């Protein structure tokens, strides 16, 4: 049994230590928002937060995050910055198929937490690891800029 701190709760999971967090979260803990896209950390569909930092759950073994707080898109609505990002995504009608968007939103939220006012170059740098096959990149940029503006306004 491995204890996983996931979305604010301790989960006792009967898995091997080498199991990537992605599969532990999906198949065993039962949260579906985190998606499988490549299994090699190349596409970002599986992006989660580990102690607030973005990570690719498909290449992070569960044994490597003992004691750390893992959170997923399923729980992002409880995060004040996450909420702003999610709303910006809706306002810009970003999603097409939507499959990658949970990972995109997790990457964007992590960016805005460390850099509330990113430049276009910084947005691109933070998001280049997240593939969207539908090609929604321009709207993703728009949504991040909107969320950034709103967060700036809230602070001021």
């Amino acid at each position, binding site marked *: 049994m491995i204890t996983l701190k996931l979305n604010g709760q301790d989960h006792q999971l009967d*898995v091997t230590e080498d199991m990537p967090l992605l*599969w532990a979260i999906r198949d065993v803990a039962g949260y579906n928002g985190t998606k*499988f*896209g*490549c*299994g090699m950390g190349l596409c970002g569909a599986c992006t989660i937060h580990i102690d607030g930092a973005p990570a690719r759950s498909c290449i992070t073994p569960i044994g490597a995050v003992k004691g750390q707080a893992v959170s997923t898109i399923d729980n992002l609505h409880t995060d004040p910055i996450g909420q702003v990002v999610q709303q910006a995504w809706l306002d810009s009608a970003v999603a097409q198929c*939507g499959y990658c968007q949970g990972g995109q939103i997790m990457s964007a939220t992590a960016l805005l937490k460390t850099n509330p006012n990113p430049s276009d170059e910084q947005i691109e740098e933070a998001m280049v690891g997240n593939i969207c096959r539908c090609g929604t990149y321009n709207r993703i940029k728009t949504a991040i800029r909107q969320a950034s503006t709103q967060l700036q306004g809230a602070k001021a």
Partner: protein
Amino acid sequence: MNRLPADFVLDNLSRRGFLKGVGATGALVIAASWGLPAAFAADAAKKYGGDAMPHGLIDDPKVYVSIATDGTVTVICNRSEMGQGVRTSLSLVVADELDADWAHVRVQQAPADEVRYGNQDTDGSRSMRHWFEPMRRCGASVRAMLEQAAAEQWKVPLGECRAQLHKVVHQPSGRTLGYGELAAAAGALAVPARDTLRLKQPSEFRYIGKEGVKAIDGADIVNGRAVYGADVHFDGMLYATIARPTVYGGKVKSFDASAALKVPGVIRVLEIESRPLPSEFQPLGGVAVVASNTWAAIKGREALAIVWDDGVNAGYNSIDYRKELEAAARQPGKVVRNTGTLEQAMSEADSTLDAAYYLPHLAQSPMEPMVAVARFDKGQCEAWAPSQAPQVTRERVAERLGLPFDNVTINVTLLGGGFGRKSKPDFVVEAAILAKEFPGKAVRVQWTREDDIHNSYFHTVSAEYLKAGLNKDGLPSAWLHRTVAPSITALFAPGMNHEAAFELGMGFTNMAYAIPNVRLENPEAAAHTRVGWYRSVSNIPHGFAIQSFVDELAHKAGQDPLQYQLKLLGPDRQIDPKTLSDEWNYGESPERYPIDTARLRGVLETAAKAAGWGRTLPKGRGLGLAVHYSFVTYVAAVIEVEVKDDGTLIVHKADIAVDCGPQINPERIRSQFEGACVMGLGNAVLGEISFKDGKVQQDNFHMYEVARMSLAPKVVAVHLVTPQGEVPLGGVGEPGVPPIAPALCNAIFAATGKRIRNLPVRYQLQGWQEAKA
């Protein structure tokens, strides 16, 4: 725990006790007040459009619409949602005619049942263009029934009752009854006859053609709650991966499962039979590892020792095959269109120009790799899958398991992208085969990204050759074009070495330029892998070759490419595609859907104007133009690029002009063309699947690269052109792709003087400055 949302299982009111759907198949569909030229009535004998699709169109509102007593309107969506927004767009059509409040409209996904729901193949950019009219009639019928129910309850003349935003108003008295209050009485009424329906005038539309309609699945998507294929979960479910033959036609010679069975969590290892070629939609066979979780299934598969018989395609090498295609393109081939006297015109020409182009295989690689869940119990099989082709899936599962069709249920989840790959049900059949081995248990088959890239149904690979004989004015009097590419039809029968009518009709035979002498040829090409539909299909190579060549001709003539394009189009005219030897015309009536060169001109001029065509650009920058008609929609693109001294490519802006006829959901139309632009850039700059010894050489996204944010244009502007007069709907999902690659390469030429004739562009720009010097 069953983690399906409650509304996933279809239990629509309309399933109980109502009329069976009255098929529009074979009947003359009434001409609606909007979007249908009267000429449509003339060719009722031959079926076109949705009527020509398997199981045709159904417009019985009792099949598609239900209203609960609390007023909630539920619309059944019979088409698969893969990002094009069809669940929203079809439902808003019903809601508009019904005059429903969008806040009280829900959508349920139809399971595979074409007898009930009409055609469900979500491909060919057909959903809105085929289903707009039937869905309008569904909405209008229910509106009429609600008005009649209210009139009967109030005992007033029907003409005094008017449906208005989720309630019926008695106009003289101002009394109202909500749709929920009227639902039971309205549901008991007969569906009005089609010819009695009053459809809204466009000025009355509440949602159709309007901005700001909230996407049905938007909130679920941003909260991670949307249910895709891999999100269907049952307690005690088994998880499987499959080691498939990596060469098309290969099969298992022998295998040793002992190490795999020692992996914790692995339950069983079993072989799946490989059927003889061609594979059609059948699984490729191989060895399946069934486990208690996905990770154990992946590790178990890695531990398998398999000896393969690679079969007849073990010699498929892309380098050699390319040479074969290019050689064939230089030789005469099957003539598919011949107008005028080509040889004579060519020999009398003032000058000639020829060029050859090459485009490699691509893989659709939707972000959600293939996945399906199936459960077999007591002679029944039920599956859940992200399928573009639910009915075909149901048929193939029934065939493969030897079950009656009625014993198979296919539920359609959201698709994490499709792009044509999920029109093939091989992955669902795999889940069904394995489920039969574990009666009563749900089994999920999960493809990895490597599986997806190795065993796609690949976009074709093609060599294109063009030669023009030019007059003194630089315009062509003679046009020879050969296309050589393995055909999708090779999936279905041996010896299919020519492109089929539907492939040739994608921007090849229906080339509409005003050129007096034209010969189009299609030399043979044998398929050595599974070739399948990829968003825009054969329009990709045909459009790239023609639009690149026209740009080359313009430069040879020393003329502005836009002005040259406009001259080539000739006078505005409507062309019957049959006169271009195109009998297919995307399945649409040639009278209703002629090729309209004024609309080609319209999108060209719109895109050029928006892009500031003709302006002076800084060094290293260029504008490129392309126009392409596909899926009965007209699209032009102008792309502005910058090529740095080191060959780095930056796409600054893309202006896309679109004439797709009447626009139902303009916001989703723009999003489709934005996405198609990005995908088109990925195809052109990065996309290549290659084979060696019959095996795909790329494994994952580090080798098969697709567009990332860095390649997306800094600005994508989609300009929707409103057509003149009444024209029917065009396609939206696919026609945005074909003009992108040629517009890009024409822009690169304008920026650098380097002509890209072979895709992908990838490293070809390195050293362009030195080469120029």
